[in-house]
């Protein structure tokens, strides 16, 4: 089995020039995450180091329990690693308190979930402008409309989540993630609850954000077809990075690699 070892050297170098324009959107340095205590402790991430380059789309794959979601949560600042460092836009998350971390997430990170996670009491437009309101800003109506139009939902502004299809809800969630112009967009199985048509639409939308706006996207998925949209595919097993290949390799090649892991020892 081929094992790619990424040297944590790059991390040590980048921490020194956080103001530089070449700052990487997200970096993980020797990140380890253990759940539970003592004998029952489970190591979800085991000394993972990597980074996600600006204007690229990365897919994180791996069998169930491989730690891919934990990797995403740690990278997005939703969860704190047991040891190691996570840097978003050059800022070390370990040094931030809960409040500062929230503000940083609000400004730099967008998040899309598998189960759309819209606030059911609010309309599509209100859901989209929520992050701005939470930041204490008064969103301009055109701004919200433009973002929703970008995901193809200009005519669904006043609809509540219950009145939208799954694919439409996921696109509202992407619009919401994008409105604050985050440095990086994290997506946790964004197509997991969608049929293939809606999936393709959401993935094309994400790909388009990368290609035309230079957006950085990190996506966790178990679907090789979804991973094929990415520039780079990281494969995790037992909390470790075990493989990396280009998305251009195609769904079949990706499926072959990951299938080997599923049936492996």
């Amino acid at each position, binding site marked *: 089995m081929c094992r790619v070892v990424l040297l944590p050297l790059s991390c040590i170098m980048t921490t020194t020039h956080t103001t530089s324009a070449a700052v990487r959107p997200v970096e993980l340095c020797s990140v380890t995450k253990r759940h539970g205590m003592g004998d029952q402790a489970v190591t979800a991430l085991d000394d993972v180091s990597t980074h996600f380059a600006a204007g690229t789309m990365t897919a994180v794959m791996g069998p169930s329990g491989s730690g891919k979601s934990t990797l995403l949560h740690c990278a997005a600042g939703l969860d704190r690693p047991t040891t190691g460092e996570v840097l978003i836009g050059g800022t070390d998350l370990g040094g931030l308190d809960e409040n500062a971390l*929230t503000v940083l*997430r609000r400004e730099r990170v967008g*998040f899309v979930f598998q189960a759309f996670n819209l606030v059911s009491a*609010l309309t599509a437009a209100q859901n989209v402008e*929520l992050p701005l309101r939470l930041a204490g800003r008064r969103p301009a109506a055109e701004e919200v409309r433009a973002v929703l139009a970008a995901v193809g939902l200009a005519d669904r502004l006043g609809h509540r989540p219950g009145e939208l299809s799954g694919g439409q809800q996921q696109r509202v969630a992407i619009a919401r993630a994008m409105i604050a112009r985050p440095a990086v967009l994290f997506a946790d199985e964004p197509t997991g609850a969608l049929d293939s048509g809606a999936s393709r639409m959401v993935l094309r939308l994400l790909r388009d954000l990368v290609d035309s706006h230079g957006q950085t996207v990190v996506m966790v998925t178990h679907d090789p077809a979804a991973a094929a949209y990415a520039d780079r595919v990281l494969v995790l097993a037992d909390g470790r990075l075990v493989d990396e290949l280009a998305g251009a390799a195609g769904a079949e090649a990706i499926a072959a690699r990951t299938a080997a892991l599923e049936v492996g020892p």
Partner: protein
Amino acid sequence: MISLATARERWTSFLGCFVAVALGVAVVAMSMLVLLSDGRRVPERLAGAPVLVQSPAGTQTGGVFAENPPWAPERAEELRRELAELPGVADAVTDRSFYAQAADTEQRRGERQGHPWSTAALAEYGLSEGGPPVTADEIVVDRSLGLTPGEPVTVLTARGPQRFSVSGTMNGPGYYVTDRRASELAGGVRTIGLLLEPGSDATRVAAAARRVVDGDGTVLTGASRNALAPKQDEMTRWIGGQVLTAMALLSAFVAVFIVSSAFAFAVAQRRREFGLLRTIGATPRQLKRLVYGEALAVGAVGAAAGALLGVVLAPTVNGVLIDAGFQPAGFEVRLRWWVPVAAFAAGLVVALAGVGAASRRASRVKPLEAMREAAVDSRPMTRRRWAVGLAATGVGAVCSAGTAFAGADGMVLLTLGTAMSLTVGLTLLAPALVGPVIRTLTRPFVRRPGVTAVLVRENMITAVRRTSATLAPVLATVAFAVLITSTVQMTQSADTARQAAAVRAEAAVVPRGAPGLSDAAVARIEGTSLLSTTVYGGEGGAALSAAGVASGFEQAYAVPAPRGDTVVVTAAVAAAHGWRKDHVASLTLEDGRTRRLHVTAVVDDSMPYQVFLPRDLVRDHDPSALADVAYRTTPAPARLLPGLRADEVSVEAYAASDDAEEDRLVWIFTLMLVAVSAGYTAIAVASTLLTATAGRVRDFRVLRLSGATPRQVLRALAAETCCVVVLGAALGLAVAAPGLFGAAHGLREELGLPVELSLAWSWLTGVVTGCLLLGTAATVLPAHLALRRMRRA
């Protein structure tokens, strides 16, 4: 924006809060409106005098409403003369009263409607027909009696029935006789009215009068004359005030309780949503503010509705209170704009106070909780919850211990305190209790075939928060209802037992539709009677209830009777005023004269009056004194004439009927308290279950998909609700028990009577049945609808 939108979306979960706040504010607004409307009016027969001088007040003790002690006769005459000579004063008139009652009229205890003709000058009304009384057997009566001048009339006085001839009629109440005739019947002077010369200023005259009186009385003018309202009315209002205050307090407590438990549950149900908001950039503080905002939105709407409801309902409730005897007849509610505003503000405070803990919990939700399918309650007991729960339970335990050693006044407060703290304590500890209790109780059922038992058990244990949120209001209802009704039941039987135990006689003769028994009625009874009067004495001239007793008293009560210039007092009075056996007590009597009397005995406090005087002494100083009761000690029944307004009853019946009026008021009071607390908690039970059921539709679907029939799902739900209600009722009983034991112990120790601990079973059954029906309906109906929708989809 989010707060408002959520409040709109999640209206079922806020329904309970809304109704609780609305009802609480309504009760508070209503109570305040009624309490703050000063119902006291200067009696019509004195209202014609612009300036009135009242004799100085004696010491007033809470709950005792007695007229001020009268001036000494010489002092009253001296004051009258000095006041009459003031510039601008046309005349000064002393006001005196005696007992007078025509046939076919009803009078209450303490009423004295007879007056000398000279005081008619002070009245707002005047003669309508005929002329003033000139001879001793002439009388002026109220026109509404239907008599015309020249007709004969028999008027019952303290001596007995007396024949008069009507000389004139008046446009208002009262019996007016010549001043000379009145002086034989009336007691002392408590009020002097000033009639002014045309054009003189009442304020200036009042100022001059104040210099003359110089502390030996109060000069009243304008609205302040309302202080002369009958003390009887004031007492009624005082009782009404107690009822309203207790109701308002209980409502406020229950409202905070319900708002906090409803919001705690709502927050627990919305952890995913809060987690989502945290991931997209909401800080913990923003979540806290969000929950506060929701409470404020619901609270504002509820409080506004409540304030409006209070204003609308106040006159109606006032009418009910008058009918029940908690407010004097003719009392009117005055609307003050700031009362509903203050009640509205109180409603907001209640909502914010109730939501405090829930908002803190919401702010601690972690972003990752958005990712979980949280159905299992993780850690429902926080360290803070443990601490506060244990502390409240501790306070409750201390209060219940205190109940056993408290007097009658403190007992009520401590009993309520016990119930409130234990309710809060056990509610907070409920999540910790629910798991072990249910696990133990349901173990035998789980081995049996069938799905219901397993589902019920596991649902209750895993969704501890839902179980606790449903259980809390049931607990509160049962605890308050059982505690209030059982305590009242025990107290009443104890009081009646005390009264009957004290007297040894064949029968009792009691007045019917009259303030008391006249001498003529008493003379027909072989036995002893108690001539009721008020004396003023000791520290600060406190009013004491006194009885004039004659032969037969010793036999009936087995205590020494006073003779000549002597007095017998109860132990409490002796202790309060520093009197002892063989000391001299200085007492002012009804006519204003002060006598120095020898204390011959100190008797125990179970006696019906505080001071006992020789009958002749009382009659000399209070010509209008009436007997409250006469006891027959011979076997032959008394021959009573119909005109004497007296009935013979058994001693036990008298003891019970003496309390009957009081008991009736207490029961109405009890009913109101139970209705308020039970009404509230019913709303809370229903709204919690509605919310919970709405949030479980996904569970139902899974159950249905795994092969459960709709009937099985509903049966499991109903069984679960019944289990929770029964458990809540059991905890409620546990809350009530210490208070009840304390009250029983206190009654035993204080009264020395064997009070049996008794439970108001009918109430308990009623309340628990009500909770069961309501709870089952609130669970099964929405679930039934959801299942049907599922089938159609």
